[in-house]
């Protein structure tokens, strides 16, 4: 009943002589919300960036909806057009208004009609609760607002999967909640999401699967609540106790 959207097959990524991803294999089914957790520098973000070819891989293979993801090939553009990405630092286009940010890709990349796109964009602003900020420039908005615009921008092309790269890490604490709330809404809609995050509570509440990475390897994966309650590996147990201490 489920389709495999994404398949990682023994993925290896190196920066120079440093191995960032050391043989990662897993797959993502349609409708899954997979949260990647783990200590800093263990390759969580890198893994996410390999999915849409922002990084090249040195070994193994990634398949997205059956297509091999090859960062240097022209085919990558077709892959990217079906993927939405949300960055830690938002990366909104500063020379465009919020509305123009959301409309750009559907109009120029997907060649959609401007009117249709604008209508859909307005709906997306409602969804992320920013209808009143439609004509603001990114620099005029708070971090939380910018990130919600970035989510609307990612949704505008009707992506088959959403990649969240530490979406709340650059936010002021008081705006984290509003971004997580929007992400919860998306989860309820049944969207396929890959989330790199340090928000353990969010991962436990919303995630359908939790993947713990350490040293470029998947150490443990499974049901988030079960994993939080009783991690099987020593490393996951230590990591989870550190961050749950920090959270309280």
């Amino acid at each position, binding site marked *: 009943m489920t389709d495999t959207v994404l398949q990682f097959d023994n993925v290896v990524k190196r920066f120079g002589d440093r191995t960032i991803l050391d043989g990662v294999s897993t797959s993502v089914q349609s409708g899954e919300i997979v949260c990647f957790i783990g200590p800093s520098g263990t390759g969580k973000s890198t893994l996410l960036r390999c999915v849409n070819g922002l990084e090249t891989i040195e070994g193994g293979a990634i398949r997205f909806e059956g297509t091999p993801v090859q960062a240097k090939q022209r085919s990558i553009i077709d892959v990217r057009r079906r993927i939405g990405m949300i960055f830690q630092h938002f990366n909104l286009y500063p020379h465009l208004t919020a509305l123009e940010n959301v409309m750009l890709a559907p109009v120029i990349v997907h060649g959609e009609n401007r009117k249709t796109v604008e209508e859909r964009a307005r709906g997306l602003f409602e969804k992320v609760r920013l209808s009143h900020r439609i004509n603001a420039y990114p*620099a005029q908005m708070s*971090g939380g607002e910018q990130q919600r615009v970035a989510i609307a921008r990612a949704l505008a092309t009707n992506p088959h999967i959403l990649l969240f790269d530490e979406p709340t890490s650059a936010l002021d604490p008081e705006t984290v909640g509003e971004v997580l709330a929007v992400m919860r809404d998306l989860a309820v809609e049944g969207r396929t999401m890959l989330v790199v995050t340090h928000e353990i509570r969010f991962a436990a509440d919303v995630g359908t699967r939790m993947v713990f990475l350490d040293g470029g390897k998947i150490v443990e994966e499974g049901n988030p609540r079960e994993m939080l309650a009783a991690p099987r590996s020593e490393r996951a147990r230590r990591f989870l106790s550190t961050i749950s201490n920090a959270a309280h």
Partner: protein
Amino acid sequence: MSAQLLSYTPLLLKAALVTIWLSWLALLIGAVGGTLVALARMSTFLPLRLLALLFTEFFRSIPILIVLFFVFFGVPLIFGLDLSPFAATTIALALHATSTMSEVIRAGLESVGKGQWEAARAAGMTYWQMMRHVIVPQALRVILPPSVGVYIATLKESSLASIIGYVELTKTGLLIRETMGSSFVPLLLLALIYFLINYGISLGGAALERRFHVNTRLMTAGAGQ
């Protein structure tokens, strides 16, 4: 004497237009060439990067007059191709403008944060879509101010054309001076005309910058990364 000078006014105006046209053409070629060289310098292909670096350093280090001599006297010798003084001057100025503009454009493109390139790529844009809609609009605010300076420099350097006998503004002034018994007045007049043209360009550039500034103010924070 002033009556005589007055009768030369149409001649000087025409010469001023020739100078403006000549340097504008060189700047345009320099902007296009500079863009290509800047992209080559940012390429991932090492030989291309080295070639662009060599080009930039070469033309930055050699006096324009020498380049002009090479083009005007050298090209006919080597390629058997006779160049008019106008063509030779345009080429020499354009080569120099290209090397200067390539640095200006590179600085502009590199001022656009890595996150912008990634956001555009992640959205599935082709290289040219990304350049046209995301990178260049942001780079322009960095590229524009020094470009005005390059245009002014090119316009002043175009006076070198008088040495190979091309009748632009300086040469016209010198010819007029000869008919007036080596008077000093035509030189003063020349300086005044150059000043007026370049001051005009400065003002125009400043107005253009102000128009950009409205947007720049809106897009300062949260842009980078």
